[in-house]
């Protein structure tokens, strides 16, 4: 296991005051805020910053870390001394057991066995286990047929000694057909274990869709752009359109314009009621790349006397 230099993570000196540490944390919390950050690895960086803050902002954890880590450099091979059990009182600084479970192995090795798990969240565990949450990323196509996905979780588990260990858990989850972005799937009894004789909590999975090269979603509606030739738009045509549920034939009405929308009722994400597929037409003209084609365009220019910038056209 590699030593983590939390002071380096926050960019402060080892002897930094609590006030300086707080300032450094807030500066970084703003920089890597997941909703606004433009940094590519913002989420991972924020996790590291949170972990460092969790330790350095708590006097007990900081003292334990300083004592253990004296003389270690970032990335150096590290093992806590045998029988390590810090005589310090730890708080979790507003971080939940679930969030602490998401911190590094280094963190859980030192602090996971200790007081970080005490407090309000634990006190309530006297009965039914807590509900926990996780995110699952799906492809848009998955919502059409239902799919089975592996979901990996890192869960805290209290041992009989009162220590807390973290373990990885993989669940095979059947995602029901018709799931929409932002929806929550409840897996009964898959949350945190309850106290003796009490049921476990539920696991709440939040659904996200990966960006798709052709489809976009808006609730249960499926949006896609379909290119059409100028004559198809002008004269009307039946064109094949590939949807996640299979290919359909769509009638393009006579006189359609680029940007015009066609709504296919019930062809969006399945559900009660199902969403619609909304097709945006994009007129694409062929290149005038041979003398014959040039002459056809020239004929059109003469015959139509068409100025698209004039109103009324």
């Amino acid at each position, binding site marked *: 296991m590699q030593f983590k230099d939390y002071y380096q993570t926050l960019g402060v000196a080892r002897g930094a005051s609590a006030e300086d540490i707080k300032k450094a944390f807030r500066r970084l919390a*703003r920089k890597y805020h997941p909703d606004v950050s433009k940094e590519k690895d913002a989420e991972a960086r924020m996790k590291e910053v949170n972990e460092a803050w969790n330790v350095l902002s708590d006097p007990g954890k900081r003292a334990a870390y300083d004592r253990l880590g004296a003389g270690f450099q970032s990335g150096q091979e590290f093992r806590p001394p045998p029988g390590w059990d810090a005589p310090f009182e730890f708080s979790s600084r507003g971080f939940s057991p679930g969030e602490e479970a998401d911190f590094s192995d280094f963190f859980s090795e030192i602090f996971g066995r200790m007081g970080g798990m005490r407090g309000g969240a634990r006190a309530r565990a006297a009965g039914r286990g*807590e*509900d926990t949450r996780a995110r699952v990323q799906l492809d848009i196509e998955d919502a059409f047929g239902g799919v089975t996905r592996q979901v990996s979780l890192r869960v805290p588990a209290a041992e009989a000694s009162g220590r807390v260990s973290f373990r990885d858990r993989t669940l095979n989850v059947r995602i*029901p057909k018709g799931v929409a972005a932002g929806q929550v*799937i409840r897996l*009964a009894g*898959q949350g945190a274990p309850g106290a003796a004789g009490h049921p476990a909590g539920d696991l*709440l999975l939040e659904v996200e869709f990966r960006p798709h090269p052709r489809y*976009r979603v808006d609730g249960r509606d499926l949006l896609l752009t379909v290119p059409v030739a100028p004559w198809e738009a002008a004269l009307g045509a039946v064109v094949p359109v590939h949807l996640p549920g299979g290919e359909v034939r769509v009638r393009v009405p006579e006189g359609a314009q680029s940007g015009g929308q066609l709504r296919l009722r019930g062809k969006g994400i399945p559900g009660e009621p199902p969403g619609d597929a909304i097709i945006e037409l994009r007129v694409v003209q062929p290149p005038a790349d041979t003398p014959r084609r040039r002459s056809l365009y020239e004929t059109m220019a003469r015959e139509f006397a068409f100025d698209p910038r004039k109103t009324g056209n």
Partner: protein
Amino acid sequence: MRDDDFLEGQLLEDAWLTLEQVAAACPVEPEWLLAHLDEGLFPQARSVAGVWRFSGAALVRARRMRRLERDFDAVPEMAALVADLLEEMDGLRARLRRAGLD
């Protein structure tokens, strides 16, 4: 892989989450949520016959507000204001995506 290795999920429709579920999923104390509800900081939550119902959007909002309060010591109204702005940004980003412009 045997068939019973798979878990069947139950799909929650909007406005299906209870106060306890939102609190546990954020995670926050239920009292924190109740105090913020009393202050009117959760416009998406609905009380039906005295029972609170939350949408998925309220879950995201609660998590954001809690983070702002925890990380920046933001007062609840300030956290709610930032959450309002982030929600507006979500809406605009969604419109950009729908227009294929993101």
